[in-house]
């Protein structure tokens, strides 16, 4: 067997929900511990570094706002990859992944919007403006809510998986719009100052806590995503076992039980 087919085999082995549950049980304690440690270091730096000469203490809001905004987009990207997995490869865990990620993404987007607003009032003099960046992030938040509602509204899980995968992929067009909105249009929101081709434009004093908080938020996302996927697999097992129990009762009722039934 070639190395490539071995790699594909290893990846497809993970498609087995039982194997995934075993892996999740092993990973979750380590991921949770690492997340807590990163948050402890990050929060310590958030409150011990200098304030900005222009923004003053409000620069500390950035250490929460920027990672939450990054994660809101990363979470949707994970959902888009999962949607591809559902539609193209029919990967058994792909829909589980997309479904589990939606509420987490909605929370990060909510956090980015609220902390951005709390920073905007003292710095811009307003809680909200309908500029391209803020509006596109608000649209992302509505998309998350819509996908959560859609998944809960449809009874047929197979149909719900397909419909939501298509919607996720259509909605993915919003991610580059969010990212480049500050370059394509004249916005009140400032352009990128960390993820730039010519390197970060902010002082290392602010960059350090920002990056550690970004890694902490990313680890939080992975931990919660794995745990939420595990919960979703359990939920599907409960549903299938209840259906099995109902079938058994039906078979007993019609006298069809037994090995020849």
């Amino acid at each position, binding site marked *: 067997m070639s190395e490539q087919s071995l790699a594909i085999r290893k990846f497809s082995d993970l498609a087995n929900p039982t194997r995934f549950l075993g892996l999740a049980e092993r990973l979750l304690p380590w991921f949770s511990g690492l997340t807590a440690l990163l948050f402890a270091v990050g929060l310590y730096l958030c409150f011990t570094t200098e304030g900005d000469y222009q923004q003053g203490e409000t620069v500390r809001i950035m250490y929460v706002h920027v990672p939450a905004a990054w994660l809101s987009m990363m979470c949707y990207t994970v959902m888009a990859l999962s949607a591809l997995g559902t539609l193209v490869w029919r990967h058994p865990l792909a829909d589980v992944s997309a479904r589990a990620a939606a509420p987490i993404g909605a929370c990060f987007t909510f956090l980015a919007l609220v*902390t951005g607003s*709390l920073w905007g009032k003292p710095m811009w003099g307003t809680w909200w403006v309908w500029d391209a960046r803020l509006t596109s992030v608000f649209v992302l938040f509505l998309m998350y809510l819509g996908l959560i509602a859609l998944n809960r509204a449809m009874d047929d899980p197979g149909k719900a998986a397909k419909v939501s995968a298509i919607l996720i992929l259509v909605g993915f067009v919003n991610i580059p719009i969010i990212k480049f909105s500050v370059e394509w249009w004249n916005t009140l929101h400032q352009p990128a100052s960390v993820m730039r081709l010519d390197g970060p434009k902010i002082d290392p004093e602010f960059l350090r806590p920002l990056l550690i908080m970004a890694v902490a938020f990313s680890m939080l996302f992975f931990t*919660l995503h794995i745990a939420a996927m595990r919960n979703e697999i*359990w*939920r599907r097992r*409960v549903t299938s076992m209840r259906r099995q129990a109902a079938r058994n009762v039906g078979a007993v009722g019609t006298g069809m039980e037994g090995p020849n039934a």
Partner: protein
Amino acid sequence: MSHAGYVIASYAVAALTVAGLILWVIADGTGRRRELKALEDLGIRRRSAGPSTGEMK
């Protein structure tokens, strides 16, 4: 011009949102685990799951 209120409000909202999310995931997991155990205690098995060791003769 410290704007401490805005900073405190931001971290409070972040703490509440993250704590709420963590508690929801934990509660959801505990609930599903309990439901699975209750069904297994009634002797219901998934068709894909093999027979348990106790049932094998």
